[in-house]
């Protein structure tokens, strides 16, 4: 675990040295505030639910921007070679990089905590759904960053890594929302597709339901894509 955290810390500091980090931080804070203001006013319930429903869409584009450089930058610069010849396993490299990006996600959540303070000042918020909603957002972010880690191991080009991540995420959001509505899709398949839909899994948490099935969905999805990333990195050695 030690070396994983060492890699995570370097990744996090590396992220803050790149201009992308500040663009993402700025856009996320701006987007979040705008979405919040849209549902904030007298008579409205003091909750984050409508805000988070919008913010989770913001993640579709901002998480890939965070993750796109994780491994692809090292592949491009060749820094992967000293890293993979140090006594660390491929799993430690992948998980460390993902954890570093998760640390950045933590920084992204700060403006949301500011919004909670605003709700506290102007009303009596129900903290249950707020907490589960924020946990849900971190779980969604974790999954997207895992998809991004996988994509960034696939190409030394950051743009390709970004687009591949957005594409895969759109499969789990847009496609799994539109396809189930098609007439040729049977009831069983429809159920399965809705289960795969990230937003629907997130909405349960956003409502204040903390169900193990949602958590299992996100944790296993994240683990699966991190596993793919490890396999992809391993396979690079054989080419």
């Amino acid at each position, binding site marked *: 675990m*030690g*070396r994983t955290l*060492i*890699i995570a810390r*370097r990744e996090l500091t*590396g992220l803050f*040295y*790149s201009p992308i980090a500040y663009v993402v931080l700025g856009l996320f804070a701006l987007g979040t505030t705008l979405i919040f203001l849209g549902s904030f006013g007298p008579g409205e319930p003091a909750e984050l639910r409508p805000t988070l429903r919008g913010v989770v869409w913001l993640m579709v584009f901002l998480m890939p921007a965070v993750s796109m450089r994780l491994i692809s930058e090292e592949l491009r*610069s*060749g*820094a*992967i*070679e*000293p*890293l*993979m*010849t*140090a*006594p*660390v*396993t491929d*799993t430690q490299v992948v998980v460390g990089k993902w954890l570093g990006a998760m640390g950045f996600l933590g920084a992204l959540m700060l403006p949301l905590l500011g919004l909670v303070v605003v709700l506290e000042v102007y009303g009596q918020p129900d903290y249950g759904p707020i907490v589960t909603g924020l946990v849900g957002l971190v779980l969604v972010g974790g999954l997207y960053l895992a998809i991004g880690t996988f994509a960034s191991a696939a190409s030394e080009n950051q743009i390709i890594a970004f687009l591949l991540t957005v594409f895969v995420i759109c499969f789990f959001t847009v496609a799994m929302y539109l396809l189930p509505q098609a007439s040729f899709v049977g009831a069983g398949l429809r159920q399965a597709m809705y289960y795969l839909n990230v937003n629907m899994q997130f909405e349960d948490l956003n409502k204040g339901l903390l169900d193990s099935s949602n958590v299992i969905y996100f944790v296993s999805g994240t683990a699966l894509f991190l596993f793919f990333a490890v396999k992809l990195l391993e396979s690079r*050695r*054989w*080419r």
Partner: protein
Amino acid sequence: MHRAPTGPAAGMGERTMIKVQDLVKWYGPTLAVDRVSFDVPEGQIVGFLGPNGAGKSTTLRILTGYLPATSGQAAVAGYDVLRDSLQVRSRVGYLPENNPLYPEMRVEEYLHYRGQLQGMDRAERVARIGEVCDRCGLAEIRRRTIGRLSRGNRQRVGLAQALLHDPPLLILDEPTAGLDPTQIGHFRELIGELRGKHTIILSSHILPEIEKTADRVIIIAGGRIVADGAVDELRAGASAGGGLRIEVRSAAPAVSDAFGSVAGVEGVQASMDDGWCVAVVTAKQDCDVREPLAEVIAAKGWPVREMRYERASLEEFFVQITARQAEGAAG
């Protein structure tokens, strides 16, 4: 994840640091390393010499565990590079070709990071970073950002990083590429200081950089080892191929016949150059044929323009070998 180490091979009398046997590496349809075998005893400084694309980097990458071989075995300090990769990696200090670093990090910060990856605790890192910075001439620039360093200083950082955990084996891939002659001189001194403390493999495509530092030179071309031995041995082998170059004004066949009949002469190669005949005479072992040849020339009354020993240098030997390999590959 961690497999139990098989441990250094039993019965390692005079300890072998590197054992490579029948190493083969295919990149898709391209054969990069072709049945390479060599052993390196502990403490030796080995120069890995060959033209670009000869398979040097690939062989070194296999030794560091970065690339797996297609077939064959490689072991470092008795540990198989594939099965006990982590054991090997903690015993190897590696400076990759092009020396990729993180440009946004400061020198000291980067060395701390590398030390942490090697599992060194803070006190150990602080002490060792001080030592390697002094040794590699980084003391003045420890706080500078790597991205702003000159090529030479970046190379020092790479070397400091490789030395940090005091590994028994140092693998330096093209360590002097892009350095100016003064920097190369410094680097040579540094390697001299490390002699006896580490086993060192350094690669280069330029001979003089290696022949002064290495105890032994392995010349690799076309993925194969074409020469392997102490620098002096290789030089002796090379100069045996030299000959006596004589330029006289005469016809080539006449010169060839006349010189060929002299006792002790093994062969004559004569060619015409602008009315002059250039003859390269090779003599039998330990025969000085200069005097009898001079007598022949005097007897024939040929005007002489030049007579000198052409001693093939190790450099020429290297060029010859690699050129042969290139022809072989082309044909």
